[in-house]
């Protein structure tokens, strides 16, 4: 049970309700240790009251999502920024 997590692609479906792009392709910088990498590379704990995505380097929480019947709660405090690839303007 010590490593009962999935990779960040587990966030794709739940976050597609919120964002118009695929968040798993964005790069995120961990507010804890500064590690930068794709959201798809986070460790996502899904057997919980919400989704908890942790840094693969320091295990700090980078992102949380809770879906209630009427709202989605998105906590990005563990992420310094998201770099979202876009088509050239």
């Amino acid at each position, binding site marked *: *049970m010590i490593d*009962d*997590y999935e990779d960040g692609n587990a966030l794709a479906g739940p976050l597609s309700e919120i964002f118009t792009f695929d968040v798993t392709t964005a790069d995120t910088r961990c507010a804890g240790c500064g590690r930068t990498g794709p959201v798809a590379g986070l460790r996502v*704990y899904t057997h919980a*009251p*919400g989704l*908890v995505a942790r840094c693969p380097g320091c*295990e700090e929480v980078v992102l949380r999502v809770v879906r209630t019947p009427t*709202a989605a709660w998105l906590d990005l405090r563990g992420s310094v920024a998201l770099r979202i690839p876009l088509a050239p303007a």
Partner: protein
Amino acid sequence: MGIVSPGFHGRRRGAGVKLPPGQYLTEDFPVLSAGPTPRIRPEDWEFTVTTETGQEHRWSWRELLDLPGETPTVDIHCVTKWSKLGTSWEGVSLDTLLADVDTAADYALVHSYGGYTTNLPLEDLLDGQAWIAYRFDGEDLAPEHGGPARLLVPHLYFWKSAKWVRGIRLMDEDEPGFWETAGYHDYGDPWREQRYQGD
């Protein structure tokens, strides 16, 4: 399973059992976790109560076990909708741990090894309602279920029963914990179905 009589299980089944609204009965013990399972050696384990004035009370593992133990049998209700009835625990009542703690605080913030937190009114930890539990079903509490010790406060949704408990901070003001800052209810009474903020 349809051809097996429920009577063969020899345990309480769903029929006639009153559950909180929206809950279903389970016989197993699902493991929910928001992160990696901490592995705390008992010799390294410590439990701290910090009052609103900063006074600290500490117990080592040995000191915890030397306190009078209780063996509550309680029903537990997870906010993810499973309920488990008649669970058997062994632990120390918070009444015992807090007996000599001088406080006028109204709120408690529970801290765990691994960083988890949860909040509740201090009065919900008292009067035989809460324990620091170290055994489940006659066995030492397994790490995936919060061992070596977890908070057990069964009258609230089970996310309040923090696994891998490390300490309790007593406070004059309420401060939301890990799930309470992400949409879950501040109090979490299963009988009033207080799952999310606004319920």
